[in-house]
């Protein structure tokens, strides 16, 4: 159905890893504008490594295009300037800076003050709790607030594609649900989302499509519905939830 639409992110036969250690093997993956795409897989499957390759932090080879432009020769700062933005695993906030300063780092490459002010309004509107906490040091907040801050920082870059690594890690289910609802709102404002999760249940509750990764390879893909009903996926990733 999306055949006519230019993919926002198009990855083909991508290899990558750390120095001489290969981790990714021939990864194929496509994200279209406005989609939420989930990537699931066990510990060490290579999900974070794929995000690092996309953000050009580690070496990679193969095909990788963002809105038609080859990503491979770009530096991380150039990828960021293209508004392909990552919320990294473990949040990685600037802990001794205030929430507001963290958000300003998200707008690091933008010069237009009026547009930045609009982004602040947008982000604080989505996450009112952060508006209350603007003067607080990011490192002193609860895990849920820190994850909100990390997402907000990324939104301040006005991302076209937002990549979120392990958003749910260590958070209470109710907070995860709140964050998922916010992602659904953001997507309606034409931000595509690439959601990397171990919480497969949570990921498939908002995603349109999904990919399953095992030891650096994509082993399965389909709509979120198809994958949630797939026997092997259920057995491998949804076992606990199905039994509970």
């Amino acid at each position, binding site marked *: 159905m999306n055949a006519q639409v230019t993919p926002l992110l198009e990855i083909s036969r991508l290899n990558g890893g750390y120095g001489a250690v290969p981790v990714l093997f021939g990864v194929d993956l496509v994200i279209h504008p406005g989609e939420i795409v989930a990537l699931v897989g066990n510990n060490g499957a290579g999900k974070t490594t794929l995000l690092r390759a996309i*953000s050009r*932090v580690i070496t990679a080879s193969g095909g990788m295009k963002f809105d038609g432009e080859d990503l491979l020769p770009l*530096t*991380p*700062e150039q990828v*960021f*300037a293209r508004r392909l*933005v*990552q919320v*990294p695993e473990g949040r*990685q*906030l*600037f*802990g*001794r*800076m205030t929430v507001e*300063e963290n958000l*300003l*780092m*998200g707008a*690091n*490459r933008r010069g237009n003050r009026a547009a930045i002010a609009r982004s602040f309004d947008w982000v604080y509107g989505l996450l009112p709790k952060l508006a209350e906490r603007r003067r607080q040091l990011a490192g002193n907040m609860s895990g849920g607030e820190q994850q909100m801050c990390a997402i907000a*920082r990324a939104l301040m*870059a006005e991302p076209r594609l937002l990549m979120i690594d392990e958003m749910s890690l260590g958070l209470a289910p109710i907070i995860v649900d709140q964050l998922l609802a916010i992602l659904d709102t953001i997507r309606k404002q034409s931000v595509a989302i690439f959601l990397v999760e171990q919480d497969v249940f949570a990921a498939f509750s908002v995603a349109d499509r999904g990919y399953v990764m095992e030891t650096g390879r994509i082993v399965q893909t389909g709509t979120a519905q198809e994958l949630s009903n797939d026997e092997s996926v259920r057995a491998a990733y949804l076992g606990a939830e199905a039994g509970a």
Partner: protein
Amino acid sequence: MLLAQIIVNGVLLGGLYGLMALGMALVWGVLNIVNLAHGAFVMLGGYIVYYLFTTLGIDPLAALPIAMALMFAFGYLLQYVVLNQIIRSAMLNTLLITFGLDVVLTYLAQLGFSADFRTIAPSYAGANFGLLGITVPVAPLAAFAIAWLLAGLTWLLLNRLPLGRAIRATAQNLVAARLYGVNPRRLYAVTFGIGAALAGASGGLYGMISHLSPYVGAPLTAKAFVIAVIGGLHNPFAVVASGLIIGIAESLAALYVGPTYANVISFGLLVLILVLRPSRALRAA
């Protein structure tokens, strides 16, 4: 009255020591490099001001910004081309490299400037005025004021400007800074350049109230190190304030123990810190 006079002298000198430590603390806190050549940068800044004054007749205070600009360029290039290659390696490597740099700069200074003592002596160098029975020397007072001024500017840069925000962000979380549009190589070069510029300014002032030789660097590095450990690496005002402690302690030691013992204070504190708090001293304090 003598005691009050000694303390005033110590405070004025201590401000300058604090300025020397400011650049070292900035570089240490952001790049995690303890720059053992920092004192040599101070020395170079001093010679720049000395030659601008003696050959071109530029007033030493007016020459300070020029020395800062030159030292910034020197520091930027040094970091961008050389030190960036080793920045992520073990601290021992950066210590060795900057120690080597100190040796090289000292040697080159000896070749280029000779081993003679030099003093930057504008007409007002020896001037002073009386205040409540205390003699206030003009040049150290100017050095003191400029030290606080530069600490204030550094604070403004770090806390109010986007460049400073990026510098602090990179110091706190390199991974995130790279993902959020910071080019660490360039940012480190800018930061190292600022550190060198601050060293350069302090060198020009030092040459006015003391004397320059190619060998002044090493003891100044030790002093700056001690002050940075006491003052911490994050607040410019705390660094300059810590300089006052060293300045006062040195003046008191000179009075009660003897002038040759002034340096013993900072070296003694250095040894004490390394014995009592080695982990704090070598972790980015």
